[in-house]
């Protein structure tokens, strides 16, 4: 009894500092957003100078957000983005990890560092960099392409989403690759050796040993990428002035930001933040669930 209560007290002691901050800066904001999203501001007079007061609005902010074609379009846009970009990047990262870990690779240290480097470039800075490489008239890539008779426009309505995807891929492929390499390194070396001695060729080793080994790391990186995708903000914000094809509601996050600070609809913005968190949770839990179900026969 005394032993277990001592141990419980210690557990509280160790958990409390994190727990308090977690409650304040993770749990409370969600609660506060939910609370705020249930209210709306009413005004009187043509400029609201007759006074303004906050009234309970039920779920009307949610129905307004979901009825807003711009907001739902922004959700659809990041989903489309995710469906393409997440697999492309994860496959790319896996490929690079396998190549670097293959026996035939040379200059491993150099390549690994080169691939990982963009992770250290903040998203806004990466967007400014790529922005210069996208804008016609300045971009050396565009001028080289034009020189070769190839008319590229990275900022047209059809391409700009993928130009943003490219920025995200550039930034995070190397990071995901490193996670996967860490996983590969944890595989006992004699396992490979045993396999090769047993006559397995390089492809068979990859297919039957390495890829199954990578599975947990692949799940982890995929979930993080899904969450990251839903948070898209700084890339479209930085590229927005460069093209009419990105507007203030291009992604759900940008839309919430615009509603909050440009249009002063804080309550609506709160509802959008809650919806975004909800979608993120459903998607990542859903993904884990699907993966988990297949794991247990």
């Amino acid at each position, binding site marked *: 009894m005394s032993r277990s209560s001592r*141990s419980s007290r210690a*557990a509280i002691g*160790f*958990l409390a*500092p*994190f727990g308090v*901050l*977690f409650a304040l*800066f993770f749990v409370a*904001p*969600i609660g*506060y*957003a939910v609370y705020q999203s249930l209210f709306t501001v009413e005004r009187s007079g043509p400029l609201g100078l007759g006074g303004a007061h906050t009234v309970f609005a039920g779920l009307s902010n949610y129905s307004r957000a979901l009825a807003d074609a711009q907001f739902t379009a922004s959700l659809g846009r990041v989903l489309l983005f995710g469906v393409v970009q997440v697999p492309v990047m994860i496959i790319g990262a896996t490929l690079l990890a396998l*190549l670097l870990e293959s*026996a*035939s*690779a*040379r*200059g491993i240290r*150099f*390549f690994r*560092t*080169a691939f*990982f480097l*963009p*992770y*250290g*470039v*903040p*998203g*806004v*800075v*990466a967007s400014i*960099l790529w922005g*210069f*490489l996208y804008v016609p008239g*300045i971009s*050396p890539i565009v001028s080289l392409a034009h020189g070769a008779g190839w008319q590229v426009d990275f900022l047209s309505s059809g391409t700009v989403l993928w130009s943003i995807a490219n920025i995200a891929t550039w930034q995070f492929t190397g990071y995901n690759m*490193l996670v996967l*390499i*860490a*996983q590969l*390194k*944890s595989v006992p*070396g004699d396992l490979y*050796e045993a396999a*090769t001695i047993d006559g397995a060729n390089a492809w068979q080793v990859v297919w039957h040993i390495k890829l199954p080994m990578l599975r*947990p*790391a692949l799940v*982890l990186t995929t*979930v993080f990428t899904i969450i990251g995708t*839903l948070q898209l903000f*700084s890339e479209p*914000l930085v590229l927005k002035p460069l093209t009419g094809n990105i507007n203030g509601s291009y992604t759900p*996050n940008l839309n919430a930001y615009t509603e909050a600070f440009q249009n002063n609809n804080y309550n609506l913005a*709160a509802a959008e*933040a809650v919806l975004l*968190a909800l979608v*993120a949770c459903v998607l990542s*839990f859903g993904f884990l669930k699907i993966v988990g179900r297949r794991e247990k026969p």
Partner: protein
Amino acid sequence: MTAVVDRPATVQSGQTRRHAGTPAVRYRILVTALLAVAAVYFLVPVYWLVVSMTKSSSGLFGSFGFWFADPHPIDNLRAVLTYDHGTYLRWFANSVLYALVGGVVATLLAAAAGYGLAKFSFRGREAVFNVVLAGVLIPGTALALPLYLMFAKVGMSNTYWSVLLPSMVSPFGVYLCRIYATAAVPDGLLEAARIDGASELGIFRRIVLRIMSPALVTVFLFQFVAIWNNFFLPLVMLSDSKLYPITLGLTSWFGYTDRQPVLYQYTVGGAFLSVLPLMVLMVVLQRYWRTGLTEGSVKA
């Protein structure tokens, strides 16, 4: 559960035995070529940045982006550092402050919580752990807006604290630390220390932290980079440019370029300076990234 030992030598000997001769050479050329193509992709924007950092604003618009034109790297960097009473240096210092303090505190809190969850059994432990895991899955930017409204309410938005405090929480760090502590901290060692009369806090400080240090370095690096690269939270929280981190400062320059074209040059120069320290950090500490990650993902 110690640091990962590089093992390429063993693997190689096993495979070269099999693919001796021409096929191996052909493979090597193919693999190296693929890696080189990827390297070009990842390094081109960095190369562009290095070239452009030496140019004036009109050079940025008027010359070919992938080659030098009238380079003045030193003058340009000096101009970046001295513009507007050296505000860039202040932003740099702010970024270091946010990332360093936030990173250290987040790591220590995560270590304690992860250890608590790993080595003490109590009812509801898994529930607590699941709540923390849910925290990992919530997009940070969805929290930023309500956090701003909360801080505004208590009059603390636009302060150092408004960026620092939320940066001190790392649910992912707790997750990594729990997994690492479960595997790496031997129960016997803890028991022995308890029998010797050591306090729980003493055990944590003197024994557990040391054993967990590889994971802690990883958690710290993660959090450091996450804070350093963070944009949305400072964007909504801060209105005083004295409190800006570099990310926000550079975008504020970039947004003002049409009124003051010289800022194009400063933005590019400032971007160059801002990526230097992190790149050094990544290259030098690469081993630690992998070490802690191995532990985390293996058990995921």
